[in-house]
C-alpha cells in the first residue's frame, strides 16, 4: 500500500475576478451537460413547444374576431403576449429539472464538490437561456408565418427579444429556489397557479378592457411590463393605458427582473448551501 497520490485541487480563489471566472467555468460545465440532453433527445424540444406553437395557430384562427384596444390587428397584438407567456412557462422547466436533480441526489453530489456556490445555478441559467433562445427563434418564425410583423427594424426587435430573455433569466433564479424547496409532484402541478398568472396580464387582452381592479393587477404583473415593452419595440398595437405602470413599461421591463433577482438570487443560493434531504 502506497501513500495516496491524490490529484491536487487548486484552492478556491479569493479575489473577486478569479472567483467569477471559477463560477462561470462551473456554470458552463454544468450547463453544457444539459445541452447534451436537447441534442440527444430532440423530443424534449417538441414537447416544450407544443403549447406555444398551438396558441400561435389559435391566434391566427380567432385573431380576426378579436378587437384590440387602441385599434390594430389582434394577431400583431397577440404574438408578443405569447412570447412573454412562453418565457414565463419556462420556469416550470427550471423547477422540474432542479427538483428532480435534487430528489435524485444529484444536487447533493454537486454540493460535495469544490465548486463555486453559484456554479450549479449558473449551469441552469446557461441551459435554460440557450433553450429559450431556440424557443423564441421558433416562435418568431411561426409568428412571421401567420402574418405577425415587427415595424421598427431589426435593432429594436432584437432588443425586445433581449428583454424577453432578461425576464427569463430572472425567472430561472425563482425557478431554482422553488425547485429546491418543492417536491417533483408539486412542481408538476405548477401550471395550475401559473396559467392564470400569465392570463392576468396584458398577454391576451389589454388591461384597459378589464374591470378596473383586475386591470390594475394585470398592468402591474411583471410579464405585462416585458410584453408591453416588446410591443413598443416591435411596433405592435395595444400599447395603451394611462396608469403609471402602463406608461413606464420599458422601465418596469428592467426593474421587475432586477427585483426578482434581488429576491431570488440570495434565496436560492442560501437554500442550495443549506439543503437538507
Amino acid at each position, binding site marked *: 500500500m502506497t501513500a495516496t497520490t491524490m*490529484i491536487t485541487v487548486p*484552492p478556491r480563489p479569493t479575489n473577486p475576478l478569479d472567483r467569477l471566472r471559477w463560477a462561470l*467555468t462551473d456554470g458552463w460545465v454544468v450547463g453544457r451537460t444539459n445541452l447534451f440532453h436537447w441534442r440527444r433527445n430532440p423530443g424534449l424540444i417538441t414537447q416544450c413547444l407544443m403549447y406555444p406553437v398551438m396558441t400561435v395557430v389559435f391566434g391566427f384562427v380567432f385573431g380576426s374576431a378579436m378587437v384590440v384596444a387602441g385599434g390594430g390587428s389582434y394577431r400583431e397584438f397577440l404574438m408578443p403576449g405569447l412570447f412573454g407567456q412562453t418565457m414565463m412557462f419556462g420556469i416550470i422547466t427550471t423547477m422540474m429539472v432542479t427538483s428532480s436533480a435534487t430528489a435524485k441526489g444529484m444536487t447533493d453530489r*454537486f*454540493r*460535495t464538490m469544490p465548486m463555486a456556490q453559484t456554479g450549479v445555478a449558473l449551469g441552469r441559467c446557461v441551459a435554460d437561456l440557450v433553450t429559450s433562445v431556440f424557443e423564441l427563434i421558433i416562435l418568431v418564425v411561426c409568428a412571421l408565418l401567420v402574418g405577425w410583423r415587427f415595424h421598427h427594424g431589426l435593432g429594436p426587435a432584437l432588443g425586445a427579444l433581449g428583454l424577453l430573455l432578461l425576464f427569463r433569466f430572472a425567472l430561472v433564479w425563482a425557478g431554482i429556489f422553488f425547485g429546491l424547496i418543492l417536491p417533483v409532484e408539486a412542481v408538476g402541478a405548477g401550471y395550475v397557479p401559473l396559467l392564470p398568472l400569465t392570463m392576468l396580464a396584458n398577454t391576451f387582452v389589454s388591461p384597459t378592457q378589464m374591470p378596473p381592479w383586475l386591470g390594475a393587477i394585470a398592468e402591474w404583473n411583471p410579464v405585462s411590463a416585458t410584453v408591453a415593452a416588446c410591443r413598443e419595440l416591435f411596433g405592435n398595437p395595444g400599447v395603451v393605458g394611462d396608469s403609471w405602470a402602463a406608461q413606464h413599461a420599458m422601465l418596469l421591463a428592467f426593474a421587475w427582473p432586477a427585483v426578482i433577482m434581488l429576491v431570488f438570487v440570495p434565496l436560492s443560493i442560501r437554500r442550495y448551501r443549506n439543503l437538507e434531504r
Partner: protein
Amino acid sequence: MTENVIDRWSPAPDPAAGEAVTAARDGAAIVMAGLSKRYGDVTALDGVDLVVPPGAVCGLLGPNGAGKTTAVRILSTLTRPDSGTALVGGIDVTRDPDEVRRRIGVTGQRTTVDDILTGRENLETWGRLYHIGVRTARRRADELLEQFGLADAATRMVRQYSGGMRRRLDLAVGFLLRPQVLFLDEPTTALDPHSRNEVWQVVASMAAQGTTVLLTTQYLEEADRLASQIAVLDHGRMIAQGTPDELKSRIGGHRIDVVLGGDGAVARTARGLARVVGAEPEVDAAASRISVPVRDQVTTLHDVMRWLHDNEVEVEDVAVRRPTLDDVFLSVTGHGADVGRAAA
C-alpha cells in the same frame, strides 16, 4: 448470551472529544467526536465517536434508520451537526467545508450519473468540476474507465448500462481525485450478487491505492469482506467498534439453524444443543427455530446432527449460514436489529 460479553465489545466508553482531536493531530483520516444530529423528534446521531486511521477501510454497519447516511452527510459537508466535532483529513467540516471538499470523494446511496451522457462524458464533467483542468480530467476519465472495467462502454450512453456498470461508474466519479478520503453510502444495495462482487473488487482496489474509505452497509458479510475496522450503529448510537475478527469472535462464526418439525420440544432441544456446542443458542420459539453458533464447522455440524438423531428429534430443516447483522445485534444488545426498530 449476555453472560459472555467480552469487554471490548461492550459499548465503547465515551472518549472525551479532546482525546479524539488529539488522535486527529496524530494523522487520523476521519474523526467524529460526540457527533449529534436531530431531525425534529428523531435523533439521527446521538454522540457518536469514531476515529479512522489513514489508509483504513471502515465499515459503518447498521440497520435502516441507524444514522449511517446522516454520518456520511455530515462528514462530506452536506449537513451540519447539532453538536460535536467532525474532522476529515484533520480539517473541521463545519469550519472549512471548502478545504474538505478538495480532498474527498462521495458516492451516495443513489447513483447520480447522468443517463444521457456517456460514461466518459460523465467522468470528464465531474473531473472538470473539481477544477483539475480539462486535460487531467480526460486522462483520469480514461484511467478510471480502464480500472473499473468500463473501457468498452466508455462511449455508450449510461442509459444503456446495467445496474452494476452504473454503480461502478458512480464509484469511479467518487474516485476521480484518488481522494484522501472516500465516502461510500451503501455501495452494493440493490445489486445482484455478481455486480456486488465486482463492486467489492473495485472498492478493494481503491483502498489499495491508499485512499481511506468509510463505507456504510447493512451487510455484515460486506463489512467483513472489505473493512479493516467495523463500527456498529443503532438508533444513532455507536454500540460496538473493532476489527472484523474481534467482532466475529464476539458473535461466533457460522450458525447452524435447526428448524424442528411436529410438536417440536424447542426448549428441551435448545438445552441439549447448548451442551453439545458449549454455547447458548438463540431460540425463536414461534418459528421452532434454534440457531447454534459454530466453532468448527465440520465437527459441530456432525455433533449437532448426531445429537438430534440420538434424541429422536423431529427435524424439518438444518442449514449452515454466515452470521448476519441480526446476529451482531443479538450478541451486542440482546435483541435483533428489527426488534430494536419496532420497540423504538
